[in-house]
């Protein structure tokens, strides 16, 4: 296997995520992205047990719908030795974790807070808000002018081609929503905590065929943050570190922009990220206890798990409908309920959830979850901690041709 160049394990186990923080998921935060970002970063620092003078790096990503690091750090009295605010949505989280490791490794800073703060429902929606005067210009003349204007509309031809090539069905991928709703029912933070059935998904209205409403994720207002530092510093902090084994950031297909000319279009970027991240971590799929495959849509989870090799090419539909990805299954995916049910912050919350799983501190309805005590009863309103988690894998998605990846373990 091509391990993606001279990367195998050089920084494996040398960095960790030591703090996580999240505001509530809502459709009416009533607050600025500045307030959301500050709360999330502050919560992550408190979680890690870090003072303002112990964080000296900051990274954020957005689509010009956030507040920048200079503002967030200033509000918290943090003087930065390094910061960048990059343009990007999904799959940016894992990429920025890698950049944070690099910045620390070369000595630019010691401890980096990464945040995403967005009013994804009340201010900047994925398909637009309809508040601007429409105009067709630039690259929108390649897609937008033909009525392809949202993420779902942009991804749908790739999903349909997978159905054509492999016989993947709407019913199979509906199981992703069913599984994630089961997980959300045990997550007090989830925006949609109700369990749904395959029939509920198939009977929900069409958005753009082959996507039903319930194949699409929720849009929410939320701020989330993570803190990355070296394993040496991590040992002195409050929480058990989530140790980083491998990371791949914004890996693209042969044509990252207008990707349809290079196929197979049903094969997504994880195909190229898998050898990098598995090569660094030096593990096999069977070693992974929990996955976090980005679920902007039921199909994105499916196609990524397949691209990363959790099943054979074309068998994603079988894999996600087999029960494997549900709590109680062999390798649950998005135990928080993910973007489909918990809320949407462009992937950062999916990494935070895997940190919780590694700590054995999923914040479910078990009375003593903070002490790592769980019932492992996955009935609604119960537990969502996977028993004995040692290794997790996040599969970040931007689009069919761009994705990121992160493998973490318990110390």
């Amino acid at each position: 296997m091509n391990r993606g160049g001279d990367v195998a394990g050089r920084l494996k186990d040398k960095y960790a995520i030591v703090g996580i923080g999240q505001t509530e998921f809502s459709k009416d935060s009533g607050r600025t992205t500045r307030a959301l970002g500050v709360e999330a970063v502050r919560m992550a620092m408190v979680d890690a047990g870090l003072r303002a003078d112990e964080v000296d790096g900051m990274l954020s990503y957005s689509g010009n719908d956030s507040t920048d690091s200079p503002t967030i750090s200033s509000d918290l009295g943090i003087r930065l030795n390094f910061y960048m605010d990059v343009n990007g949505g999904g799959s940016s989280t894992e990429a920025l974790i890698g950049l944070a490791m690099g910045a620390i490794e070369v000595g630019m800073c010691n401890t980096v807070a990464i945040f995403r703060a967005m009013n994804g429902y009340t201010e900047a929606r994925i398909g637009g808000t309809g508040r601007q005067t429409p105009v067709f210009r630039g690259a929108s003349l390649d897609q937008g002018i033909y009525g392809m204007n949202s993420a779902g509309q942009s991804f749908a031809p790739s999903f349909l081609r997978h159905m054509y090539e492999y016989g993947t069905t709407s019913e199979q991928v509906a199981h992703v929503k069913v599984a994630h709703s089961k997980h959300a029912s045990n997550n007090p933070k989830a925006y949609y905590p109700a369990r749904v059935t395959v029939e509920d998904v198939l009977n929900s209205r069409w958005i753009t065929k082959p996507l039903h409403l319930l194949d699409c994720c929720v849009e929410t207002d939320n701020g989330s943050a993570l803190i990355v530092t070296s394993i040496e510093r991590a040992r002195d902090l409050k929480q058990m570190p989530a140790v980083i084994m491998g990371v791949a950031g914004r890996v693209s297909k042969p044509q990252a922009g207008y990707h349809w000319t290079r196929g197979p279009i049903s094969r997504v970027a994880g195909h190229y990220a898998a050898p990098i991240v598995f090569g660094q971590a030096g593990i096999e799929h069977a070693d992974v206890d929990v996955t976090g495959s980005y679920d902007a849509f039921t199909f994105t989870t499916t196609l990524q798990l397949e691209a990363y090799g959790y099943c054979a090419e074309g068998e994603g539909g079988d894999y996600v409908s087999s029960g494997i990805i549900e709590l109680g299954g062999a390798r649950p995916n998005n135990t928080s309920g993910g973007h489909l049910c918990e809320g949407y912050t462009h992937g950062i919350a999916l990494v935070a959830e895997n940190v919780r799983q590694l700590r054995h501190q999923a914040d479910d309805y078990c009375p003593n979850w903070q002490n790592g005590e769980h019932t492992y009863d996955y009935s609604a309103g119960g537990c969502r901690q996977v028993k004995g988690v040692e290794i997790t894998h996040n599969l970040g998605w931007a689009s069919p041709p761009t994705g990121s990846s992160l493998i973490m373990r318990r110390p």
Partner: protein
Amino acid sequence: MAEYLGVKVDIASNDRARHEFLEAAGEGRLTLQKCVECQKLRYPIMTACPFCMSADSNWEEVSGKGTIYSYELVMHPIHPAYRERAPYPIVLVELDEQREYPTLDDGLRLVSSLVDGSGNPEDIEKVAINARVEVEFADLGDGLALPRFRLSDDVPEHELWRLPS
């Protein structure tokens, strides 16, 4: 002023290639950039050749015939220009030229609209993978036009496939 479906089409004055592409369409020709060095066609409009990095290209007229490689049927429109046009298909058309290059999975594929003889969205029941299509042009004004596709009478190479209902 150029416009499409009641929405302004604003082409930057320094985007010469896009002007030329839409001007050719205005004359009823679908033209693609062809690399002067490696002689390969490319789409969409690019400023260098993705196969050999050459910066030089000429326009070459292509047949405008192709096959639906994939599609979607938009039931819930988002863009104001499309609010009155739903349900409407978006098709990914693979042109007959330069198929399976540079690998067997690649080709010249265009995101486009599938319209009927009146220029309205084609009946969504008729849209299928492997259906044969041909280009047509929607007038934008100012001598420009937008390429779109309609179903053709050609015999499909492979069996038609539709999303099961």
